[in-house]
């Protein structure tokens, strides 16, 4: 159609050419803007899918989980020390403690090792070494959690058993594996945010007579603080939600650990282990465990948002 009209324009001479081509342009612009609208709406629908999922999950978990909490009693459920589904006793306090301890331990190790690695990659390592290290760390992020669990089972658990006694499947094994699993998150986000620090800050600090290490800890790390914190919070989220690897290496005993070598059962492991055969109040209690886990994750996300929000406002 376009070709046809352009031919006719040429035949009709110059005068009309202006107005017709003007009309065509306008028409084309309309077509373009309709296409724009369609594409914008496709984007909107895609965005809705994510929101819809979040809302559905939230509503469903709370709808399915909350009744059990009230049936059992909030205090009995959250602070109950005994989990015996067969006897109708549902206390998840040992699992809450286990989840918190395993996550906390992993995050402490993860922060120290991860931050130092990120500093090394962003500031100290020569280019060729970075080109070896970074893909290796990215690979670490891509390994499925069941493989981590398997590695823990055949390497870390026997090592703990041999050197610290016990069966080996323990809180400590969980901490070690979780720490390794969250390293890539902490490292890559911290490194990226440190690389984003303007070189002029570094120059300014060095020109004042600061050493490289002083500059790293007093200017670069503080300037990259919000990114580093975001990495830590995301890593924490990953650690608290991890299930598969944890089931394989922590022994899954729902008791409060008194030593690093004690067996633990985390909230996630509790759900995954028993959901297959649970029914009735037992099943509802597992959903309720999910509610508690969900609340933990929400708190973490609120913290993360607060950090990001603070960054934007600076």
């Amino acid at each position, binding site marked *: 159609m376009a070709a046809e009209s352009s031919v006719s324009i040429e035949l009709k001479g110059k005068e009309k050419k202006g107005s017709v081509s003007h009309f065509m342009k306008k028409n084309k612009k309309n077509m373009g803007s309709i296409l724009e609208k369609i594409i914008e709406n496709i984007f909107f629908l895609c965005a809705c899918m994510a929101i819809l999922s979040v809302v559905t999950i939230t509503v469903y978990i709370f709808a399915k989980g909350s009744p059990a909490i009230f049936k059992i009693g909030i205090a009995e459920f959250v602070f109950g020390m005994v989990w015996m589904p067969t006897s109708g006793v549902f206390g998840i306090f040992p699992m809450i403690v286990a989840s918190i301890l395993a996550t906390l331990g992993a995050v402490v190790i993860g922060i120290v090792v991860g931050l130092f690695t990120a500093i090394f990659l962003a500031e100290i390592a020569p280019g060729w070494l970075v080109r070896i290290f970074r893909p290796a760390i990215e690979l670490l992020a891509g390994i499925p959690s069941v493989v981590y669990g398997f590695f823990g089972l055949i390497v870390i658990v026997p090592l703990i058993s041999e050197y610290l006694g016990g069966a080996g499947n323990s809180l400590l094994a969980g901490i070690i594996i979780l720490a390794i699993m969250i390293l890539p998150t902490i490292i890559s986000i911290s490194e990226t945010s440190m690389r984003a620090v*303007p070189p*002029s*800050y570094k*120059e*300014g*600090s*060095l*020109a*004042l*007579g*600061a*050493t490289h290490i*002083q500059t790293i800890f*007093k*200017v670069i790390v*503080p*300037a990259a603080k919000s990114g580093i914190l975001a990495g830590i919070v995301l890593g924490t989220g990953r650690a608290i939600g991890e299930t598969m690897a944890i089931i394989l290496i922590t022994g899954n005993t729902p008791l409060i650990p008194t030593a690093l070598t004690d067996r633990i059962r985390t909230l996630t492991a509790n759900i995954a282990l028993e959901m297959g055969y649970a029914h009735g109040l037992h099943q509802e209690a597992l959903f309720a465990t999910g509610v508690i886990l969900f609340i933990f994750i929400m708190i973490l996300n609120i913290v993360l948002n607060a950090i990001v929000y603070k960054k934007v406002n*600076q």
Partner: protein
Amino acid sequence: MNSSELKIYTHNLELFYGDAQALKNININIDEKKVTALIGPSGCGKSTFLKTLNRMNDLIPNVKITGDVYFDGLNVYKEYDIVELRKKVGMVFQKPNPFPMSVYDNVAYGPRIHGIKSKSKLDEIVEKSLVNSALWDEVKDRLKKNALGLSGGQQQRLCIARVLAVEPEVVLMDEPTSALDPISTLKIEDLMDQLKEKYTIVIVTHNMQQAGRISDKTAFFLHGEIVEYDFTEKIFSNPTDKRTEDYITGRFG
């Protein structure tokens, strides 16, 4: 020739970025408590030369330096600890680069890394440095506010205060006003006039009028060499070299 003491001098200084020679046979004497301006077209080596004086070129890989730079009679590249050197030879950059922290912490940064912990001592240094950089009246009520909230001109004066806080002897300025508006520029120029009573100032500038206004001596750089170095009046009124005359009259560059 004059009563000034010699603060910095170089001997056959040459600098290479890989295979490219950026400085050729630089021999220059810089007087104490004077303003020395370095002028010349972009890429002529004046900033590179400035950075040899506090060894900021050390940060760049593949830089090779031959010849010598002497500061207070000692060889900068052989006889100075780099931290000690940079304490004595401060630097103000082209773009204001305050740290993303409070005004106070910016100024206190240098003294703190050099070991001063006493709060009262730091307060004193911060106030003195801000007064000396003509910024105190504008920021005294917002010392705890983030320095990035200051205007460009204020940020640059803050960077000068930050340098002064370490009590240097020499202040290097690499086009310190090129990113600033005319009023801020004027304030910084006035400031330099005051500063030269206590400090030796070496300034790189693209602004010929600025060099004429503020400096006692001027060096004209071209293709990594010093074409002419003399009293500023002489350079601007009666240059010896044809190339200097062409440059300052705007015929090239």
